[in-house]
């Protein structure tokens, strides 16, 4: 069985140009370093970013030949990570943000579900075009469709108001939709938002 290479050998191999040595070093210490960073920042994405920045510094230092802590690779990397964590908190202190506490998130209360100006214009245009198309329908179908879609009436209420059975009202609604689709297809009208 082949024993895993020691850090100083891997570092030396990497400095000599063996890129595979870096892969072994990263994979060997990945969990330990990432968990250390995560235990401080408690955010998976930020931990990932700091891990990446840590190894960018490691790579640059090793490639520049500026590494002189032979035999202490992991503590050296941990110190870089620690400094980057401090930088992260310093940056955040300068730019404080409100994140809420526990399960409460202020943005779930302040959410804006309104359409932006462009989408509102498109929506208005579609509704306007649809209104013109409905005008093209036979009167009995138009009546049922308007009651159902614009006045939100049930088919029972429609049947009572128009003096026809529920089945007839349903049938008229069905034909109204079929005819609307036919008009749309025939005139190559695009109704999308």
């Amino acid at each position, binding site marked *: 069985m082949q024993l895993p290479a020691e850090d100083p050998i891997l570092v030396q191999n990497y400095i000599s140009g063996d890129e595979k040595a870096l892969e072994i070093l990263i994979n060997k210490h990945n*969990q330990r370093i*990432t968990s250390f960073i995560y235990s401080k920042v408690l955010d998976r994405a930020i931990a990932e970013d700091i891990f*990446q920045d840590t190894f960018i510094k490691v790579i*640059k230092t090793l*490639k*520049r030949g500026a590494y002189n802590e032979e035999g202490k690779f992991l503590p050296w990397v941990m110190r870089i990570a620690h400094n980057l964590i401090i930088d992260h908190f310093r940056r955040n202190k300068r730019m404080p943000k409100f994140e809420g506490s526990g399960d409460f998130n202020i943005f779930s209360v302040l959410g804006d579900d309104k359409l932006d100006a462009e989408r509102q214009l498109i929506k208005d245009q579609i509704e306007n075009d649809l209104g013109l198309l409905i005008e093209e329908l036979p009167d009995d179908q138009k009546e049922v469709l308007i009651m159902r879609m614009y006045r939100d009436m049930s088919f029972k209420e429609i049947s009572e108001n128009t003096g026809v059975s529920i089945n007839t009202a349903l049938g008229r609604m069905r034909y109204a939709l079929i005819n609307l689709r036919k008009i749309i297809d025939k005139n190559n009208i695009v109704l999308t938002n």
Partner: protein
Amino acid sequence: MEQIYPEKQDKCRLVKAKPETVEFLLQYSKSLNIVNHKGIKFENNLN
């Protein structure tokens, strides 16, 4: 009884950087070239 477990259990979570992050670092390392010219180090990223 003395509280011997951490206040935030989540702090002890074992996490690993994603394979994509590791791959990025390996690619970054391969593309990084540092040239020493008359005592001055020049960094090149050969993408």
